[in-house]
């Protein structure tokens, strides 16, 4: 069918199975993961119960996520929503990260072969370190430096909020090779874990939500890495260099934005699905008018999540077709996360004071969801990007 928002049957089936599994097998550990600020110790055994391949980094032999005719990026949307529907702790245990996406976007063919392809084949955890204490949105403010010293680049600076930074096999670190050049001086460097001078100052921040995710404060103190670790730059054949990649890094991130929107939709849908049967069981406690209002709210919330899914599809189809739209990706990320916060809060409110109790996971998902409108480009930044398609550089 042309112009249809319906996923193929095989992808629907895969996503449903994933969702049911994450709900029954993973969700029971959600509270523990939140309190311990990390994945449950038996995470491998929990993942072993999955009836479908998840693309695990620790057990690549169990298989990658299958390929569906819908397209890889559409598949990712279904995957993000379904796995996070159980709870947010599960996804990072698969490995992953976004450092490898930057390698893919910025690397020379040789670099892609060395750092991207293996991750795709066997899985693996990578991290992306752009943000620093002094900036987040304005990535031109990179203060971390990389100075050439004969056969190496020497990196100095500190990176904040690096997801998975403490245990990734490598971190893609953004540093400037020449402050005079401004944004054009910013380059990305692959810094493998264990490189002397790569220090984890704080493994995990004390956060409002997604507490089981590792959010690390990193410091690079005269951290020397090989020359060939500068992405997009061919040390032996400079003519093969593909550029510094500052813009490219953000481009690579843009494709991941709808995935974050899908994650938020997963949490919001889980919240609606948790409260709906509870509310139905309590229907007798509501006046008929109020019960109508409750039903109307549930209906409106389900409909708005569908809107978020459709924008996600619109954005990611463009990536699968090889003509990615940054504007649609921004629209997707600008829409669903903020909407998801409001949906989860309304689910809590409909239950009343019992909705905020730790007896249920709603209060946790409310905390978890807030970051989706902040990281990988805040809601305001997404609006600027969308605005630029309309009015150009004046938006901002």
């Amino acid at each position, binding site marked *: 069918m042309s112009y249809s928002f319906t996923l193929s049957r095989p992808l629907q089936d895969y996503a449903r199975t994933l969702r049911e599994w994450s709900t029954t097998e993973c969700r029971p550990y959600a509270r523990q993961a939140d309190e311990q600020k990390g994945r449950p110790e038996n995470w491998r055994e929990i993942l072993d119960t999955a009836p479908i391949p998840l693309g695990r980094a620790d057990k690549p032999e169990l298989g990658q996520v299958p390929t569906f005719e819908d397209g890889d990026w559409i598949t990712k949307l279904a995957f993000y929503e379904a796995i996070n529907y159980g709870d947010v702790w599960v996804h990072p245990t698969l490995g992953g990260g976004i450092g490898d996406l930057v390698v893919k976007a910025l690397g020379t063919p040789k670099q892609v072969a060395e750092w991207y392809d293996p991750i795709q084949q066997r899985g693996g955890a990578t991290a992306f370190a752009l943000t620093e204490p002094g900036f987040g949105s304005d990535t031109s403010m990179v203060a971390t430096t990389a100075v050439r010293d004969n056969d190496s680049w020497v990196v100095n600076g500190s990176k904040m909020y690096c997801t998975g930074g403490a245990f990734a096999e490598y971190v893609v670190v953004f540093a400037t090779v020449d402050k005079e050049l401004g944004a054009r001086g910013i380059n990305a460097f692959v810094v493998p874990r264990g490189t002397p001078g790569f220090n984890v100052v704080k493994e995990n921040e004390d*956060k409002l939500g997604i507490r089981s995710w590792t*959010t690390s404060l990193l410091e690079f103190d005269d951290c020397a890495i090989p020359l060939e670790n500068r992405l997009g730059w061919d040390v032996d054949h400079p003519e093969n260099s593909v550029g510094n990649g500052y813009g490219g890094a953000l481009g690579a991130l843009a494709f991941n934005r709808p995935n974050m929107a899908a994650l938020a939709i997963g949490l919001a849908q889980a919240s609606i699905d948790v409260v709906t049967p509870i509310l139905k069981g309590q229907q007798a406690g509501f006046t008929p008018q109020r019960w109508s209002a409750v039903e109307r709210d549930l209906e*409106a919330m389900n409909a708005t999540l569908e809107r978020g899914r459709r924008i996600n599809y619109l954005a990611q189809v463009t990536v699968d077709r090889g003509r990615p739209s940054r504007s649609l990706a921004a629209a997707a990320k600008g829409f669903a996360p903020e909407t998801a916060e409001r949906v989860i809060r309304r689910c*809590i409110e409909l239950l009343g*004071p019992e909705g905020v109790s730790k007896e249920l996971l709603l209060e946790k998902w409310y905390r978890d969801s807030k*970051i989706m409108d902040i990281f990988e480009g805040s809601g305001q930044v997404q609006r600027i990007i969308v605005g630029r398609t309309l009015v150009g550089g004046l938006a901002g």
Partner: protein
Amino acid sequence: MIDLEPDEEQVEIAALARSIADELVAPSARDAEYAAAVPDDVWLKVFETGLVMPVAEEHGGGGVPGPLALLAIAENLGHGDPGIASAALWHAHAALLVGAHGTAEQRSALTRLATDPGARSAVALYEGFGRGPAELATSVAVEGDQVRVRGRKVGVPFAASADPLVVVGTDPATGAVRAVVLPHGTAGVTVVANPGSLALDATQLGAVDLDVTVPVSALLGGPDADPAGLLATVQRLRLLTASTAVGTALRAVEYAGQYATGRIAFGRPIASYQGVSFPLAEAMMRIEAARAELVDVTNAVVADPGGDHGTAVGQAVSYALAVAVQATRDGVQTLGGHGFIKDHPVELWYRSAATLSALDFDPLRDPFQARL
């Protein structure tokens, strides 16, 4: 005649509450959360100000502040920390109800509340389901010289320890609002264990199941209590809680505004971007509107306690809480990633406002709006 000048008492009390909030309450917010209790020294000092124990002098208290002064206390303490403020104020609510409507014997028991800083009392009011106080399903039935109380209360402060616990319900015979004063340990009061909440841990919120039979002397104000007056005071308690949330909203906006003037992005302080300053400005506009509404509706309730204020109170409460939820949300958003970590207090306010909004929520007043 319109007169927007607060009187001397209101001004002085507001200033005192703000200074306590700044110097004592705000700095202890995290401690109170981690301990799930207001630290003893903080409680003692707040208690000694007399701001949160509205008990007449004849019963050992410092006097009962006027209705608008109470609103100002709630707002200003909420500006310091919604957790500590709510703990102190919800304890005060019991004294307020008993002082205004209790029998002589019930009122004389206020001396303990007024003089013992270790005392914790509470009003069990909320039931969820969007019910206003006139619609409470908890039944308070007079059966001869006994009174039977049955129902489930949620969002009860100091649920496991309140002494007394003042339970508000309705009389199944007349439909009128009634309340009973239950000492701690009354048979038939079952506290449902609560593993904790999104926020306001210092208030020790919980649910309480009631199937209690006590002598009629436990009825607040006795069998002939005036239900209209009682209902009016209960409505004021809801307005006071909403006022706490308004104080928190204001603090979040001020904090975020301050941060935005110092944080640089794209060559300028982020406050210079409308994407940052407009949400905070919207919040300021609405905070003014919400506070004015709380004052106006409080005045209306006080002026005519027998009148039907359900709609006006419901509107005021629902609006103020929605404003607080959005303002505290925008507080987090303004700080970006830094708003998401506990190094800054905005995340605490975000959780607290959502908790308050779940307490007193009516789906009829505030339908979910999908963003256009």
